């Protein structure tokens, strides 16, 4: 006679594996709880998104569509960024600083090509205080002439000095302006040898703030806050913010579809050398020109190792002239365009040699001479980078806010990861081929005697 347990064992095992399998099949992107995704909403015309990431702290950001791309006059974004958290109608600069210090918070403002971001990190309980502060900064900052001369202007000049001393940054800015000309190509900080304060005045900055902090042009994004709570406070504290973007400047500049131009620029610079080789890339996932294979190609070229004491799997990582030559390939994504660029820094000879290698490698990829294994590795690395954007609070906040403001949808990380998974070897090959057929962007900063011209590299510009 079979005992009941023996008879049923097979069925039991079957049931057990059934129950276990879904959990094993769960991809990286599928969240353990529902909190990995940003939930978005709108309160009185203010777009907001939040994610209840477990933990005792919250990061709150106001992401405004007021990056250097959209500024009507040069330098306005940088000036407005430095005016953030200064005296408002209700509180002085000092009081804002002291109050947030007492709450143990961190205040920060920065800008990218497309966005101006005000960021605060604080303990979870203090959410209402900081939503109110953001509302106040957006609606009632006082753009006083003396605050401009005493506090804002010196910061702009310092940033300018720092920029001039950094050849890599200069090469990247130059590549962007070659690739996109106006709009997206506008440098993120004053890039000429003279600062652009010529176009700045407190009145202009105030006018620009009416565009930057108008309801259709910004989004409030929180990480580690309850959605209902954020919705309640956003509803309450953003009443005074202008509902429509109206100012003497008309509307934001640079909103037309970005066009890729390409070209070559060479700047003599004493000290160190940098070279940027760039190609048209992919827009952000929320934009119209999303090409996941660009991200894969970017990590395939790579240059930097993610693992210590190893040159890494990436093609440039292995092929660069010396271990001391720094190489990095970035796929910069913007709302309606992108730039895939390789930055090379180091000794002039090594930079020149590595630049030649980089172009040869792209030709190799286009010809399909890369092993399948490499592409699988590159896909994994690209996917990891994307998913890390979900973990990395800062990147997640900007991408989400940017998506909300520009394209009315939050950045959904796992969908991006899925897209990357579906990239085929053929797609990478064909995208590499198209890069070589199009005009490239090459900018060299440093010893121009040694650094090669684009034509010497075999690129057409």
């Amino acid at each position, binding site marked *: 006679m079979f005992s009941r347990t023996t008879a049923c064992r097979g069925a039991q095992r079957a049931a057990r594996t059934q129950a276990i399998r879904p959990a094993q099949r769960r991809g990286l992107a599928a969240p353990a709880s529902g909190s990995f995704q940003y939930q978005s909403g709108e309160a009185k015309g203010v777009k907001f998104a939040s994610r209840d990431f477990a933990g005792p702290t919250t990061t709150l950001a106001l992401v405004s569509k007021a990056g250097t791309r959209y500024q009507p006059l040069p330098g306005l974004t940088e000036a407005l960024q430095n005016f953030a958290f200064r005296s408002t109608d209700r509180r*002085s600069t*000092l009081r804002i600083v002291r109050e947030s210090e007492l709450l143990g918070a961190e205040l920060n403002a920065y800008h990218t090509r497309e966005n101006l971001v005000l960021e605060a990190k604080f303990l979870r309980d203090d959410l209402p205080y900081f939503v109110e502060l953001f509302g106040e900064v957006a609606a009632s900052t006082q753009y006083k002439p*003396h605050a401009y001369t005493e506090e804002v202007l010196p910061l702009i000049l310092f940033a300018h000095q720092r920029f001039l001393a950094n050849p890599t940054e200069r090469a990247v800015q130059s590549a962007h302006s070659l690739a996109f000309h106006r709009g997206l190509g506008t440098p993120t900080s004053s890039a000429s040898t003279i600062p652009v304060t010529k176009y700045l005045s407190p009145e202009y900055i105030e006018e620009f703030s009416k565009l930057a902090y108008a309801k259709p042009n910004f989004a409030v994004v929180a990480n580690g806050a309850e959605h209902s709570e954020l919705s309640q406070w956003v509803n309450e504290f953003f009443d005074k913010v202008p509902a429509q973007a109206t100012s003497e400047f008309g509307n934001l500049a640079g909103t037309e579809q970005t066009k890729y131009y390409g070209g070559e620029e060479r700047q003599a610079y004493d000290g160190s050398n940098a070279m940027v080789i760039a190609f048209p890339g992919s827009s952000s996932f929320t934009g119209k020109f999303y090409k996941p294979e660009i991200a894969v190609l970017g990590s395939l070229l790579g240059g930097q190792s993610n693992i210590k004491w190893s040159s890494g799997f990436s093609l440039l990582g292995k092929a660069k002239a010396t271990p001391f030559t720094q190489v990095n390939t970035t796929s910069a994504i913007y709302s309606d365009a992108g730039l895939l660029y390789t930055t090379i820094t180091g000794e002039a000879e090594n930079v020149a040699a590595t630049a030649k290698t980089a172009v040869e490698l792209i030709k190799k990829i286009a010809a399909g001479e890369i092993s399948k294994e490499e592409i699988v590795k590159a896909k994994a690395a690209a996917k990891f980078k994307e998913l890390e954007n979900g973990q990395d609070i800062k990147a997640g906040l900007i991408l989400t806010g940017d998506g909300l403001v520009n394209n009315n949808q939050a950045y959904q990380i796992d969908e991006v990861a899925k897209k990357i998974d579906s990239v085929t070897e053929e797609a990478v090959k064909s995208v590499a081929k198209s890069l070589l057929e199009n005009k490239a962007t090459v900018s060299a900063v440093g010893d121009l005697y040694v650094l090669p011209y684009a034509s010497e590299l075999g690129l057409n510009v």
Partner: protein
Amino acid sequence: MSAPSLAPYVFKRPWLQRFLTPLANWYGNAAGYRQLGLKADDLLPEENDTVLLALKRLPANEAYDRVFRLRRALQHSMQHNLLPKNEWTKPEDDTPYLSSIIKEIEREMAEREDLEAMVILKRAKNAGH
């Protein structure tokens, strides 16, 4: 630095203001600085940080006008003569262009002092930490 003033006390009482205004106007004209083309705020002692900062915060055109008035007044004072009557400062032009900035700076400083002297109490919620 702004001097102690009875003005707010007087302004609160209309009868007192009515009584004192002619007296104040007489005093303003009798003080003699208007005859040299100066404004009352040009006479404030500037040898301290507050006023120096306030002078830096003056809009460029006002700072220029101030220097011009001071130099003209000095010249006339040395020569022991007065300006022609049509160039005297008119009472309506005698505005407190600098005192308003000085007051703002003093408010800022007072706020800083207050915040420095602050006593911090822990929120009941966090008291155990």
